[in-house]
């Protein structure tokens, strides 16, 4: 519809650009503050202000956050938790996406009696507040010997992520003509042949959407991390929260901000590299479910 909206008068154009740029500033300033604070010395933080540039740039905050800062009782920085998050996120993302791809394939191309009901149940599962499953899940993980382990967190993220991934793939595959699948079946192609030869080559965009959505969700999760993990198995979000809330000693805001940057970097990088797919995931996940 852009072609009908005429450019209009100059003052109104200036006003529009003014508002849009002001909004850009508002969205960017917290990130800028986080960055410049992380490079200041504690002295500098006390004498300067939020938007003052560091008088001498120093990476002390970063090295301290990475390997020395206290996150509760131990003081080894966030590096261990950063790797925990990777160890948790990578398998959980891959498993939930693969399961979602096959589920979406079945629920769109191999419907059976009850498959629509199952899809409805999965859809509803996207909405359930997780508070309602926390306690039984904690009990189950305890019974399985998975309490406070990365494997336990992977399992949890797969269970509560698969509804979304299934939704993505199902809605994507529904748009692919059934005739394609029917023709292949007449030629004698089986379940897996059709998936790998026909659908998979068409699936790159939706795989990207699902992988990025899941990566962001799981990396940023705090609730499951704080409930199901403790001590050495905690993800970075929990460690960051502990670091910020540790009250012993003098508060070092440069360390807090550096730790926050460390926790934010992986998802920020993914967003900058593949933002297009992230936005598609957001809109798909919201409009349909």
């Amino acid at each position: 519809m852009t072609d009908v909206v005429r450019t209009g008068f100059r003052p109104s154009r200036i006003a529009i650009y003014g508002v849009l740029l002001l909004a850009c500033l508002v969205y960017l300033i917290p990130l800028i503050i986080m960055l410049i604070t992380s490079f200041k010395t504690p002295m500098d933080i006390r004498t300067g202000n939020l938007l003052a540039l560091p008088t001498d740039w120093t990476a002390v905050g970063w090295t301290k956050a990475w390997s020395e800062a206290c996150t509760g009782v131990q003081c080894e920085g966030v590096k261990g938790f950063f790797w925990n998050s990777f160890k948790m996120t990578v398998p959980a993302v891959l498993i939930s996406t693969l399961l979602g791809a096959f589920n979406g394939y079945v629920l769109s191309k191999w419907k059976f009696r009850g498959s629509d009901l199952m899809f409805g149940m999965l859809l509803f599962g996207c909405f359930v507040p997780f508070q309602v499953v926390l306690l039984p899940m904690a009990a189950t993980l305890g019974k399985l010997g998975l309490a406070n382990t990365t494997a336990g967190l992977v399992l949890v993220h797969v269970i509560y992520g698969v509804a979304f991934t299934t939704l993505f793939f199902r809605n994507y595959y529904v748009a692919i003509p059934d005739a394609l699948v029917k023709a292949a079946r007449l030629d004698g192609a089986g379940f897996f042949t059709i998936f790998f030869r026909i659908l998979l080559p068409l699936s790159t965009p939706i795989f990207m959407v699902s992988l990025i959505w899941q990566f962001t969700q799981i990396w940023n999760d705090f609730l499951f991390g704080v409930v199901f993990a403790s001590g050495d198995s905690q993800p970075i979000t929990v460690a960051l929260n502990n670091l910020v809330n540790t009250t012993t000693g003098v508060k070092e805001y440069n360390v807090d901000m550096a730790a926050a940057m460390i926790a934010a970097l992986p998802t920020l990088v993914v967003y900058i590299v593949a933002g297009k797919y992230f936005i598609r995931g957001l809109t798909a996940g919201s409009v349909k479910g």
Partner: protein
Amino acid sequence: MEHTQRRPAGVARASSGLMDALQRWLPKLVVAPTFILVGIGIYGYMLWTGVLSFTNSSFLPSYEFVGLEQYAKLMESERWLVASWNLAIFGGLFIGICLLIGVVLAIFLDQRIRQEGAIRTIYLYPMALSMIVTGTVWRWILNPSLGLEKLMHDWGWTSFSFDWLVDSDFAIYTIVMAAVWQASGFVMALFLAGLRGVDSSIIRAARVDGASLPVIYWKIILPSLRPVFFSSVMVLAHIAIKSFDLVMAMTSGGPGYSTDLPAVFMYAHTFTRGQMGLGSASAMLMLGAILALLVPYLYSELREKRHD
């Protein structure tokens, strides 16, 4: 069944029967793990929590039933009332402000703006951050002595004072600020996608009739985006009801319990205060709140589809 004639009949029938059965069952086998995991992990556990909410479980689950006692206790709990009231304030402001900012930015961005892609990227990046990161940053910005207040003092506004973060009457609004900062760009993206889908011939016709651009937006375009409004409200309400991370990172529910939300209440009672029964009851009420939103929404969605 042509090939049966080429082979001994029985063998062929047996093997093709097996293959057929396998082909028939394969799709079900493939979805079975998900079905089981979700069946137990969502529906089974939901029931389990429901059962626990009728017991007097404290530090460990117990199965001594006490009827609706936990719910009654919840209703009498000052802290739960504060949490519910906070959710109403937080949810209402969060949803309202996000919608307002999102709609305005989307309409402005839809005016053939140069560098639209870059601007959109900037508006939306907070959605990629963890709420813990967002909370950490905003907590620093709103720091009563070194944050915004000091900035204003340095810039010459020496009487400026801003200590909402530690003021139990105002702390909840700081959480609204951070949440709006994080999610308003997302609403913008939803509405921008909606605007791009509006049929341009309608607008052209309205312009020919002499309608001005603001009038066209207000009278024609925005009403046609009703579905986008509804889905935005759904998503934002969902975020609001589940909000937990942001409160934990910014105030941990404090000062006192003045910024408690139901999710924080549930966590505190279930996992740190040893009142599992009460925590479960609060979780069930959260589920009830979501259902109260979801059921009419899905109902209207389905009805609209039938009308099409």
